[in-house]
């Protein structure tokens, strides 16, 4: 705990502790787990393709983490992103089959994500329901729609341009999924840190009443962030269907926990007003590295789930406990 003096200033020791823990849990964790896997698995783990695989496997999570950083910064949450992934992927795949146009399919996938996000946002701003409840309801609703759309059937994605852009392509030797990760995180960082909109999101999440009397249109900011969250889930759906050459209703089903863990471990406060885009990227890579390392270690799926759960609990406890000391 920091000591607050009578005049409201913080003691130096308190300040050091706060700065240390808050910002670096995810980076320390990343290095520690990396060293652990490197030590136990040697060259199996430490080789050039490992890094690329960790990043490309993480790409859909990374993309959704960007939307979720904005969402948590606002003090809201979007639980429907996982099922939106499946719906978007299926809508895109079906559109692709119907029209053969890669760009129409991509647009349809992103648009359905935006629609889900806007519906969530309208219920939160106009009906004034907690986002937790609204998105819990739409999570089930959207999952149902995804199952209904093709009657549980998988849809193949074979159109070459679509597959190149959202999965198999590369630019100057760099896998396109790595490019997607870099571009989306960079864009998210830019909007959060260098645009008025980002400042308004943080202000609303910090104290909506203060933002409101300062002339910030709180509901408009919220609506945009919900739409943004839906669009990132939609993009994640496209990235899955491109990489896996098909779409199915189970896509994204287990992603919600990974995204939230990545963002929270990365230093974004659940309570709003405080965000780290780079932390979320590292958090996403951290989760991906754990998956990869455990798979390489020969653990069964059940064992992987247990270990992953324990690691997430530890990491989240560390980053949240540290935050309380402010």
């Amino acid at each position: 705990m920091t000591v607050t003096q009578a005049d409201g200033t913080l003691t130096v020791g308190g300040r050091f502790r706060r700065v240390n823990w808050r910002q670096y849990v995810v980076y320390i964790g990343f290095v520690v787990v990396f060293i652990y896997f490197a030590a136990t698995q040697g060259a199996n783990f430490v080789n050039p393709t490992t890094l690329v695989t960790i990043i490309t496997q993480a790409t859909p999570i990374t993309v959704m983490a960007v939307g979720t950083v904005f969402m948590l910064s606002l003090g809201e949450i979007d639980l429907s992103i996982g099922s939106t992934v499946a719906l978007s992927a299926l809508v895109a795949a079906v559109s692709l089959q119907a029209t053969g146009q890669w760009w129409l399919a991509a647009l349809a996938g992103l648009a359905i994500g935006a629609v889900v996000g806007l519906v969530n946002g309208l219920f939160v701003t106009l009906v004034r329901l907690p986002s937790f409840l609204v998105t819990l309801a739409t999570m089930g609703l959207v999952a149902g729609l995804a199952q209904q759309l093709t009657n549980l059937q998988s849809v193949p994605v074979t159109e070459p341009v679509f597959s190149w852009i959202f999965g198999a392509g590369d630019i100057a030797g760099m896998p396109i999924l790595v490019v997607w990760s870099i571009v989306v995180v960079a864009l998210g960082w830019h909007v959060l840190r260098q645009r008025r909109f980002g400042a308004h999101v943080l202000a609303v999440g910090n104290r909506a009443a203060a933002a409101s009397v300062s002339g910030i249109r709180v509901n408009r900011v919220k609506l945009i962030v919900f739409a943004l969250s839906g669009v990132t889930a939609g993009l994640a759906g496209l990235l899955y269907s491109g990489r896996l050459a098909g779409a199915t209703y189970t896509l994204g089903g287990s992603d919600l926990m990974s995204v939230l863990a990545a963002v929270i471990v990365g230093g974004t406060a659940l309570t709003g007003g405080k965000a780290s885009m780079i932390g979320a990227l590292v958090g996403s890579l951290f989760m991906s590295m754990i998956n990869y390392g455990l798979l390489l270690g020969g653990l069964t799926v059940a064992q992987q789930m247990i270990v992953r759960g324990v690691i997430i609990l530890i990491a989240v406890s560390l980053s949240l406990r540290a935050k309380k000391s402010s």
Partner: protein
Amino acid sequence: MSTSTSTDTFALQLDGITKHFGGIVAIKHFDLQIKPGEIVALVGDNGAGKSTLVKIISGMYQPTAGEIRLNGAPTNFRDPSDARTKGVEVVYQDLALVDLQPVYMNMFLGRELRKKPFGTLDRREMAAQTQALVDELDVRIPSAKAPLSDLSGGQRQGIAIARATNWASSLVLMDEPTAALGVAETARVEQIIMRLRERGAGVLIVSHNMEQVFRVADRVTVLRRGTQVATKRIDEVTHNELIAMITGLTS
């Protein structure tokens, strides 16, 4: 201007402001002129209509009758942000600031400066302007770049006042600006308020604290049950007379 007695332009002029809620008269024909750089205190007992008047001047309510003039021009406010745009800034007692952001972002909240060519936030310029303003008003803070959460309650209210002053072209309206502060911090904030005289906006301060009214105000106007009892220069009235006007009891 319709006032024939003076060629001065008042920062704020209220003529016959009246507010009804259904059949209830909350404010009855209220008049007030505030000159640029003048500090006027609004006092009255609970329920006298101070809050209603504050809400009318800040754009939250529209008056039933009467006219508001800012810098001589008749005006009306659709809502609080319209009033802000027209030059009325409000300092709230519960601090309308965001504590996870640095001081300079609070100063420019909702009005962030941007730089060419990409319209990105100009943090350096915002910090520089903030530092200059807090230096001028002698709001003593560690740095314009410090997070607001590092500041004490008095320092934060100093920032809120500095922000209002920076943007108010006509009037700074303060609703119990020191109600949440201790004795030493109140004294600091009062010094900052008094320094606003040099910056040219009119100041209307609502206060329950009579000592404070006598320390900072040039004039005082008294409301009792929606009726304006008197408006006096502060050196024309004694403490007891003021209390008598507020309560309606003569001793």
